[in-house]
């Protein structure tokens, strides 16, 4: 190189100049692009703000559907529970409270709701019985294809309408006047008060709906609110800000001025980092992040989601799992304690011995006390005995390879690998994991293309029947086509009986038949642990209804 040191130095100086220009240029570009994109805010909101009574939270995902007739997922239900209100609602302690309905009467074949006159939509107009009629008809209208239409089936003609056999106008709900709603029931239903708290029963105002031209619920301004909060800002994928609804009839109860869902991510380490920085008031923890939370000495809370997870077995005759002995063998080798405490390892999960989770209430107290579950023991020797019987009955030397269908979520992946390992080592069974993305798993489960499928079920309403009818032969969610006439009879009893004691007895029989026939293998009830900002108080976590519920929350001034 002919270059001298002199030239090195001068070129170095040019490069420094270039670098300085570059840094400023880059900063300028950031500013210009940010301004173009509307990133105009200058400060990051704090997790809690006591003066403004504002809480900033991180949520796992953006609510995919805020049209209450079509929503199916917990994220949407959580937001809807804050911005809408049904006839009844869930209160602080988990019980039902009057919502838009002031009082109600539910009989064998009819129900009447008297609406309060001060309930208002967010544009100031009153919430009337007609809005409920419109909302319910939309849910049941087969043209809308609502997945939750079945939850209205207790209403007269609902099922026939949903199957397209009757016009929508024949639905057994009628607005007597603006403030009285009459419902004709198809059958006696002991839990109709609990049903009407469900989002599919929320009111929708017809004139407003028409004005949105098919975009109802897609943006902040295409939704009309009658709940404690309204959406003031919705940047898709980035932020959803709820502010107190000034027209809400019970606004004195609401202490928070705003709930700002400023982050959408389900990644636990990102959530934890946001909490650590004081940007989010709540963060859910997993096995890995809980250790950090402990070392940092943050207050940790625990919460059961109310769902139950189980292995569905395929009962179609061509499948090996249609053999009762094989099902018994599979059931006997699973150590639920080990699965929950050593494999999943997340605090908040508990082993499940039954399809009915522990929090359900019976006639006078916990259902679990009224219909006790026999303890589940691991017995490898007995399992091997059943396996031999199964082989003899099936007429095979080796059980053919079993297909275990799972989704690609981290917890089910861990579970599937553990189960595969257990079935292999304890029974010598060859189990293949069929890991599919969510929709493909659903398609394969619906088509019966599996031997074992890892499933979960969350409650829709606060009654054991939300789990109890899952394995009825007619239930679409009974993917393994389990069919038992006696069970079907008991499900019918639980559906139509109004006698609490008799219903609990029916649930007991359902639980017994499911266990005897090994229709499913319950594994665990999921739960979670999370950290919450110490100044944020009054957040309600619950199994049924919008969760978490910030409507009663507030921020205390002192630490």
């Amino acid at each position: 190189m002919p270059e001298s040191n002199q030239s090195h130095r001068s070129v170095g100086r040019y490069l420094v100049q270039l670098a300085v220009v570059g840094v400023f240029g880059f900063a300028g570009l950031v500013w210009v692009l940010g301004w173009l994109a509307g990133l105009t805010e200058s400060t990051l909101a704090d997790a809690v703000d006591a003066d403004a009574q504002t809480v900033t939270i991180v949520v796992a995902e953006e609510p995919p559907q805020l049209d209450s007739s079509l929503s199916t997922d917990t994220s949407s239900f959580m937001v809807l529970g804050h911005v809408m209100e049904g006839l009844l609602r869930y209160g602080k302690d988990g019980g039902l409270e009057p919502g838009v309905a002031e009082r109600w009467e539910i009989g064998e074949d009819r129900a009447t709701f008297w609406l309060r006159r001060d309930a208002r939509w967010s544009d100031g107009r009153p919430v009337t019985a007609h809005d409920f009629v419109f909302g319910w008809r939309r849910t049941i209208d087969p043209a809308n294809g609502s997945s939750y239409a079945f939850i209205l089936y207790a209403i007269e003609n609902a099922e026939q309408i949903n199957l397209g056999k009757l016009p929508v106008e024949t639905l057994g709900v009628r607005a007597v006047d603006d403030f009285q709603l009459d419902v004709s029931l198809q059958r006696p239903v002991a839990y109709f008060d609990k049903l009407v708290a469900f989002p599919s029963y929320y009111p929708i105002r017809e004139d407003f709906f028409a004005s949105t031209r098919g975009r109802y619920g897609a943006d902040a301004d295409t939704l009309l609110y009658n709940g404690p909060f309204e959406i003031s800002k919705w940047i898709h994928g980035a932020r959803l800000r709820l502010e107190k609804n000034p027209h809400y009839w019970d606004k004195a109860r609401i202490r928070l001025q705003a709930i700002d869902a400023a982050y959408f991510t389900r990644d636990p380490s990102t959530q934890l980092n946001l909490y650590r920085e004081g940007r989010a008031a709540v963060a859910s923890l997993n096995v890995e992040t809980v250790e950090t939370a402990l070392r940092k000495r943050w207050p940790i809370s625990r919460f059961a989601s109310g769902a139950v997870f189980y292995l569905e077995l395929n009962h179609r005759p061509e499948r090996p799992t249609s053999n009762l002995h094989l099902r018994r063998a599979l059931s006997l080798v699973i150590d639920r304690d080990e699965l929950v405490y050593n494999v999943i390892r997340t605090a908040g999960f508990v082993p499940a011995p039954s399809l009915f989770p522990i929090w359900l209430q019976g006639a006078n107290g916990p259902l679990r006390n009224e219909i006790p579950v026999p303890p589940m023991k691991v017995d490898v020797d007995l399992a091997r005995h059943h396996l031999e019987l199964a082989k003899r009955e099936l007429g095979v030397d080796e059980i053919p390879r079993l297909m275990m269908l799972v989704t690609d979520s981290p917890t089910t992946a861990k579970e599937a690998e553990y189960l595969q390992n257990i079935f292999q080592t304890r029974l010598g069974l060859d189990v293949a994991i069929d890991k599919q993305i969510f929709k493909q798993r659903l398609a394969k489960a619906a088509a019966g293309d599996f031997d074992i499928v890892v499933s979960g079920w969350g409650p829709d309403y606060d009654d054991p029947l939300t789990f109890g009818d899952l394995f009825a032969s007619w239930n679409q969610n009974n993917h393994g086509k389990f069919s038992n006439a006696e069970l079907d009879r008991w499900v019918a009893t639980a559906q139509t009986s109004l006698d609490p004691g008799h219903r609990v007895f029916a649930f007991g029989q359902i639980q017994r038949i499911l266990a005897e026939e090994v229709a499913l293998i319950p594994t665990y009830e999921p739960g979670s642990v999370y950290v919450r900002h110490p100044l944020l108080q009054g957040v309600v976590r619950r199994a049924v209804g919008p969760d978490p519920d910030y409507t009663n929350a507030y921020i205390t001034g002192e630490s």
Partner: protein
Amino acid sequence: MKRLLQGVVTIWFIATSTFVAMHNVPGNPLLDEKAVSPEIRRNLEARYGLDRPVFPDQYLTYMRNILRGDFGISFTQRNRRVNDILREHFPVSAILGILAIVFAGFGGILFGSLTAVYRNRLPDVVIMVLVVVGISVPGFVFAALAQLGIVGLNEVLGWTVLPVAGWGTLRHLIIPSLVLGLGTMAFLTRLMRSSMLDVLGADYIRTARSKGLPPTRIFFRHQLANASLPVLTVLGPAIAAITTGGFVVELIFAIPGLGRYFVEAVQQLDYTVIMGTTVFYGTFLVVMVLVVDLAYALVDPRVRLE
């Protein structure tokens, strides 16, 4: 003009391949956790036109709609149009991408010249080691480490200098775009180094110097400008690389870009969103390649002569 026509045919090819690929995917986007009766499913299929034969009915409708620039309605968010989704989320990805490209291009030119000028001396060695790291470490590892680094930095300083994740202020742009541009920058640095070395020894530099041109002018007008040309040629592939990287960065930093949306749509088997995004991105890339080619012809007279 010929290029333009070719571009249109290419976009048609992209649209058709996407359509074919999508209709071979097992599974059904209309299935939900709560199973519905077959009657209702048929209703839904009719609503989305899935009940008609795939070819020619569905295909023709799809093509007609693309021509009108209408990608239909999302399957998972039944009240949102795919066009709205593209319009809302693409600018986010684009901003990150632009910043990353600028950062990578500028950094590459700067560090590349630095290493060439100080060849085999300390700055060269240090930068080249970093370049090797930048080329050989996967982007997602960088992203995860960067997030951790910010947390540490903020904790040491006692206030949030740069946010950990999210979207909303200018500060949210900085770390993700730097992480996104890092790999490309390392690659460009290497390229710039070798082309700068070529230029430094070139005859016209010696001529310029002997003519007595001021060193500033020699450096900026002759050395830097000429050495930067190859960087421009790889901009096309670089844009593609940064589009890819955007997926990870958007996932890790919780940024509402199109990449993250696409990954979610795939999980949900949201036909219309997947097809819309693919066709849109394909078109975008085709246009970008055209633009880069034109820009190159504009900058380098030799290309025009050919």
